[in-house]
């Protein structure tokens, strides 16, 4: 092999090293879930809230794509997504849960998604949410809050939900 070919190989190695540091798969989240205030109501004096669990009226959407040129080209990379939350002002009794919907848009029907169809709690430590393969766009994520009660002080409770994608 000539010195020129060696230089090309070295360049590729450096290039791939930087690519590897730059992370090969990216995740983007759009949309913000909202909870309708009208769902939090009391039917009669003396009662707790009618619904102790409310589901968001809007969803957020997760898209997974590859940064790596070869992965993007092949559309055959595998990934897994974890979820956790960081609380800004959250009551310990409130339980946040998520699940994904089935609708999504993939590339040439190569995208596959596994798990995440059942409600699961989001805690302050990352937990596995779902996995899949190939670029996939607009995976809907629904949210619900459990344990809503008049025993919780009136306040605006805030948290940030963070999704992380790892390449399998």
């Amino acid at each position, binding site marked *: *092999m000539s*010195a020129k*070919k*060696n230089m090309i*190989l070295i360049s*590729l*190695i450096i290039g*791939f*090293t930087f690519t*590897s*540091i730059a*992370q*090969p*798969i*990216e*995740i*983007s*989240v759009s*949309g*913000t*879930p909202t*909870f309708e*205030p009208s769902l*939090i109501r*009391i039917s*009669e*004096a*003396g*009662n*707790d809230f009618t619904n102790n669990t409310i589901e968001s009226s809007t969803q*957020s959407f997760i898209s997974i794509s590859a940064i*790596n040129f070869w992965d993007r080209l092949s559309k055959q*990379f595998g990934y897994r997504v*974890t979820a956790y*939350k*960081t609380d*800004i002002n959250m*009551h310990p009794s*409130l339980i946040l849960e998520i699940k994904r919907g089935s609708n999504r848009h993939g590339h040439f029907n190569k995208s596959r998604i596994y798990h995440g169809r059942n409600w699961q709690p989001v805690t302050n430590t990352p937990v596995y949410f779902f996995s899949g393969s190939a670029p996939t766009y607009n995976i809907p994520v629904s949210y619900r*809050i459990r344990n*809503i009660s*008049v*025993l*919780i*002080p*009136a*306040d*605006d*409770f*805030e*948290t*940030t*939900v*963070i*999704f*992380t*994608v*790892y*390449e*399998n």
Partner: protein
Amino acid sequence: MRRRLSIGLTIIFIVFTLRVQSQSGQSQGHGLTISIPEVVMLGLEATSSKSIVLNPESPNTAGLALDFANSHNSDLWINYSSITDGGAGHLRSVTVAVTGPIPKGVDLKVSASHDAGKGKGAVGVPLGQVILSAEAQNIITGIGSCYTGAGVNNGHRLTYSLELKDPDSYAALDYGGSTGLTVIYTLTDSK
């Protein structure tokens, strides 16, 4: 030598290519807000009518006084749901006041029992018997975020009694038929 170098570089290339597959994750998130509203709800419950009648018994024998012994009623229950903002000292009270003329010579009194324990949270504490007047007075205090349960046998039972103001006030009694009064309960922030 060159051939070995090329093989070595090729191996390194493959290793780095594979290494790409095992890098740390990339994250993105969004905010989420849940608003728990303030709640102030109070209701009166009774097995039948919420209107009650208190009338002392007339004496059967000339020379005896009106008998107030049975002029009491415990048919009403007070229920409430309350959410405060949870701040220190942010509690609520139930006040009671009456509109309309209370007959001369008598006191209309009301007391609330302790909570029946069917609900949850920081339910209030009754203050004991209150002599009703047009001025709002506390009858239950220390209410935080709680619910008592709805309907009769939930919350606090109210006991009304009509009593002679004092022995000397008998002269003030005036035959006037029925006097209709309205008793108003309010769940309000404690002052």
